[in-house]
């Protein structure tokens, strides 16, 4: 709305930063008021809170974001959403290139953050054993906030990428995206960045192949999501640690 009619590339970084700021703010606020008080509650409590928060956020967008009760067109950016490339007989959408590039950059940065920085290593320590981590002088509360922030940043980038790709958004897109994200993470192996990337790619390829190659009536695109979730269940049964994961950690 602010840059109505602009198709120039310089809008993209502003868009990204805006998206990141908005979702980081939401993440920090909800961590502080909804999740932190439940840190030592039985495991059912934060799960139920998560459902409440997701319903609340969805509805808040529907009610208070102008025009969000129906689908909204996503602002196009010429370099990213313009005419598709033709290479030989292949058609490659510009948005797809952008998405893959964003994935590569984010994955690399996240890997560096988790494995090479002090904060990232602290995060690994907290995830393995919060009490011991605290004894080692790690500020567990701060680490958890940082984890929420990182998640929010990545989700914001993914959201912008999805908007550019689909060219429209609505307040419900998060539900399916979240479910698929979990599927991809389980597929690759929870707690494993390479795994998550691989899982996401495999999930996408399996979905497309399933709609193409499953014969008869159960093929078509109507069954795409069904096959994705069936894949999730199959993975959990036969390889609960995921494709790249080591032994699965019991999250009970």
């Amino acid at each position, binding site marked *: 709305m602010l840059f109505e009619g602009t198709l120039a590339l310089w809008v993209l970084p502003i868009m990204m930063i805006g998206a990141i700021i908005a979702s980081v703010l939401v993440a920090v606020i909800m961590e502080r008021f909804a999740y932190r008080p*439940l840190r030592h509650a039985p*495991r059912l409590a934060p*799960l139920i809170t998560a459902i409440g928060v997701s319903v609340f956020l969805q*509805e808040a967008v529907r009610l208070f974001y102008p025009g969000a009760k129906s689908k909204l067109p996503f602002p196009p950016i010429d370099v990213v959403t313009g005419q598709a490339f033709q290479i030989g007989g292949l058609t490659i959408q510009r948005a797809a290139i952008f998405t893959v590039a964003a994935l590569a950059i984010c994955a690399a940065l996240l890997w560096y953050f988790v494995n090479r920085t002090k904060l990232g290593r602290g995060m690994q320590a907290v995830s393995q054993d919060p009490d011991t981590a605290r004894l080692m002088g790690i500020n567990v509360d701060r680490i958890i906030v940082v984890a929420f922030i990182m998640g929010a940043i990545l989700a914001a980038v993914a959201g912008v990428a999805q908007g550019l790709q689909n060219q429209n958004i609505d307040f419900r897109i998060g539900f399916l995206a979240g479910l698929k994200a979990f*599927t991809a993470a389980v597929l690759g192996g929870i707690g494993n960045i390479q795994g998550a990337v691989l899982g996401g790619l495999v999930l996408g390829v399996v979905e497309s192949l399933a709609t193409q190659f499953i014969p008869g009536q159960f093929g078509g695109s*109507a069954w795409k999501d069904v096959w994705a979730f*069936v894949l999730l269940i199959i993975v959990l*049964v036969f390889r609960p640690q995921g494709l790249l994961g080591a032994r699965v950690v019991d999250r*009970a």
Partner: protein
Amino acid sequence: MNERLDALRDRFGRLGWPLALTGAIVLALGTFTSWSYVATILGNLSVYVYPGSVQLFALVLAVIAILFLLMYRGPLHRLGDWFKSSLAVRSLGLGSAVFMTLVLLLIAVQSGGLINIDPGGWVSWVGSLLLAVGGQLMEVRAIKDPIYARLPGWVEILVIVILLALALFGSAFALGQEDGSVFLLFFVALGTAIWALASCGFFTWIGILAARHRRVLMLGAFVVAFLFPFTQGGSDANMSIATQVIIFAATAMGLNIVVGLAGLLDLGYIAFLGAGAYTAAVLSDSAFSTVGWKPPFLLVVLIGACVSATLGLIIGTPTLRVSGDYLAIVTLAFGEIFRLTMGNLDGSNGPNLTRGPNGIPAIPDLVVFGWDFGETHIVAGIPLGRFANYYFLLLIFAAFVITVFVRLNNSRIGRGWVAIREDEKAAEAMGVNVFGLKLFAFSSGAFLAGMAGTVKAHQDVSVTPDQYVFLNSAFLLAAIVLGGMGTVAGVLIGSAILQVLPEKLRFISDYRLLIFGLLLVVMMRFRPEGIIASQRRKLEFHEEDQELAARIEEIHLEEEEVSA
């Protein structure tokens, strides 16, 4: 905050009682005068001499407050030995202050200005504030513990009967309110009264009574529920809400086995209700049903329940190996698979079984043993419409579900579930068949939901995939969380609140889901054990509270004693 309050109590404690009594009397007197200049708001509040409409709620609150004050000091002081009357007065004070403020705000908003509030309204408002302040200043005085209070048996049964009768007429009255704001005020007043009774220890005593006269209570509750349609004078509008409540409650009770007893978070539970409903729909006489076989309804109920339970087994066998967050997401995915599949089996994307997104409409009303559920029957001079018929049928179902729930809870199986919920590894080490019991919880919950689904299909007339979205699973879960996990009464109350409030408070309809989401977060934050907490749950959520543990043990021992 609390220390400052204690210091104030030390200094001005003597003033508390007279202040509160004055407040209650002023509040009561105010209700006999006009509150509003405009006669069309909140019923009619512009009459002098006698109270009307919502003024009656305020009057009742004031009278209860006066009774408690007289228990604190005065003619009823011997009753005050048993109950913490000052805590009740505190709750009543805060509640009635909120109530009066809400009334004045509603008058001001609906009539277009504070100017339309008559002096009587301000008088009652000041009274409620005095009551609130006075109540805060009163010291706690209770010498005896209500759990040891004993009355002759017939008096105790009489108390139960009176409470049940109050519940019957209260719910009939509440459902009869057409005006959303009057309903809201009734809800606030009722909540205040219940809160007051809870904080003075009255319900702890009732708990002991219930333990001693369990059969009387169960039978009485059933009779009250049975009599409810007769209070409606043939009106189907409220019966429709009541049937919704019962279907919802019966389904939630099934989910309560899975979540509340076994501690498995199932986010796709609505699919089992859907499986039952779809089974009933395709086997019904509907012109759109896709299966030629038309078995009698009782058989359909069994088939629907079994289909649902089989689905539960199919989904449970692989997924119950994972736990916690994983299980929640997998069941969520299963719910989505069910919805998408029902939407796809329309003949072009798959075999034609469910007619896809259009669903199966025009499901005829049930006829069981010659009783046509679609027609109005006249019993004892009172007409009972279509929804009342379904209400009776559903009541039998609900009674069955509750019996199953209670029986399972008090059995070896139920204790196994508790063990699994609290520590799976320890349970396994003790020889509990963890996987088998989890699977049993899953499939028995599915069985009950499937049963409820078969009636729902006929009651709703049509079955479509969009009735079985994730949000409805979340609603079921919310009913349990709100009411109290693992309890019967809690789930009933939670279901009633979640179904009735949105029906009656139409003006919040757009914000319904927003409030719902917020409610879940706030409940988990401040009262994770729910409105009616099972004692064991309460301890699970407040592990470090030694005082609470001792108290719960005391109550539990007393309950064991009286029921033996």
